[in-house]
């Protein structure tokens, strides 16, 4: 479904849900659900605290590094697998296992292999994001119309130029789709890494607020996080749309 096409109605119905939240909160059904208005007030003051800013920075830092690694490695591995059967055979099975395996179970193991604290979280982000990027890149590379590649070769593009002028560009829509899905998974990864192993950044705040039953701040954190996750995904989707526009009816 094209979120873009439904952006307006989507916002509208989310607003309806917000109203329901506010009403349920006002009725005091459970201490877990404070009125949305209180949460927004909490969010407003929360973002002004040094603690939140530091946590957000830590989290963002781990996320950006992890994603950057995932994109570089993912696109390269996907390219290799898409082009060379040897690489495909060698890595295919692992990529397919890890893309849908419950990686959470692996997170505690990562620390031993890669290091503690932020490193664990970076690796978690990487590990959550990279496989889908590999698979989508590989699919994109394999979906490059054979004729387009032959066109390049017949006009004298060989080696590196074939990749930079034809193959990577032609696979760009799929690569971007992979990166978008990878980002969504990466956000999940950063949170899971911070919740399961290294209690830093956002994970620390979640832990802190839920321990103290500070639901306003807890939901404030959640809303900000969800909004960022959706925003990132919408951003990439927007770029995708533009690329697909040029790709037209491929």
């Amino acid at each position, binding site marked *: 479904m094209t979120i873009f096409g439904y952006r307006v109605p989507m916002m509208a119905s989310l607003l309806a849900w917000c109203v329901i939240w506010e009403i349920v909160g006002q009725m005091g059904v459970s201490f877990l659900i404070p009125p949305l208005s209180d949460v927004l007030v909490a969010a407003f003051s929360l973002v002004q605290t040094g603690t939140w800013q530091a946590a957000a920075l830590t989290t963002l830092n781990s996320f950006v590094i992890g994603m950057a690694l995932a994109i570089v490695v993912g696109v390269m591995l996907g390219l290799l697998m898409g082009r060379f059967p040897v690489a495909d*055979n060698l890595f295919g099975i692992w990529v397919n296992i890890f893309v849908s395996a419950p990686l*959470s179970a692996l997170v505690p193991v990562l620390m031993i292999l890669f290091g503690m604290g932020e490193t664990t979280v970076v690796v978690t982000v990487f590990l959550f994001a990279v496989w889908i990027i590999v698979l989508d890149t590989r699919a994109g590379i394999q979906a490059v119309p054979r004729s387009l590649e032959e066109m390049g070769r017949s006009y004298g593009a060989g080696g590196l130029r074939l990749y930079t002028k034809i193959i990577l560009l032609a696979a760009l829509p799929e690569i971007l789709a992979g990166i978008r899905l990878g980002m969504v998974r990466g956000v999940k990864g950063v949170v899971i890494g911070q919740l399961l192993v290294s209690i830093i950044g956002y994970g620390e705040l979640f832990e802190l607020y839920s321990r103290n039953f500070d639901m306003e701040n807890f939901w404030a954190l959640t809303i900000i996080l969800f909004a960022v996750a959706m925003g990132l995904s919408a951003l990439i989707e927007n770029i995708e749309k533009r690329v697909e526009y040029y790709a037209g009816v491929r």
Partner: protein
Amino acid sequence: MSAPAHANGSRRAISGTGASSFWGKLLEHRTALWRAASIALFFLVWEIAGRIPISFAFPTFLETLRAFLTMLFNGAFVAAYAETLQPLVIGITISAVLGVGLGILMGLSRFAEWLVAPVFIVLQAAPMAALIPLITFVYGIGLMSKTLAVVMLALPVIALNGYKAVRNTNPSLVDMCRSFQGSWWQRIVKIILPDASPIIFAGLRLGLAAGFIGVILAELLITPTGIGDLITYHRSVADYPEMYAAVVSIILVSTLTLSALEAFEVRVLRPEKRKG
């Protein structure tokens, strides 16, 4: 799991010229062999890394294998999975019924789409893991909580896939059914559902994968039971081979389950994909 080999078939023969096509041909007939080699290579690297050792908390492959076999035969895995799979099965069943139902509803009704789809879109993109600790406050630590964790992760995927599948029913098939005066009900039962079933089923598979994540998160974040307990307990007493064996087992179980489901899907739902 079967996808890579499948998607490759024709591609492979094309890509190479000259010498590389010779290798291409050789490899094509040896895919299974290559997979085995890939697995063996991985284990070899693991064994070497364990022997260096890169860390005292990192067991070798053989130690882990030994622990794995021990736990397999002494009933530790059986007991753990009996506990872990319970919320998973219940949660997936609930999510499947609810998700497919809601998905079809959203696919058929614009209003349901408007009201419900955005919620699922948010839930699918958002890191739900953050909310799992909250469940304990309401539902404690029992089966209910873990089931809920599974549902929270699995339901959005299943619902959204059902929704997309129904929305993207081949319009000319729908026109075809209308042109033969098929009733509304016939249209849904004889065209929309069969046409959507492969994607709905793929959604169930993705939902199951998410459910595995949910149950593991629940067992690591809510209360260590089943396989989550095997991981945390063996870690707390520094039985690292056992801990790794438990981690490997859950990845193995989920991978095998998902592959079996995919094989079932191709065999039963896609006559057009069965041969060739």
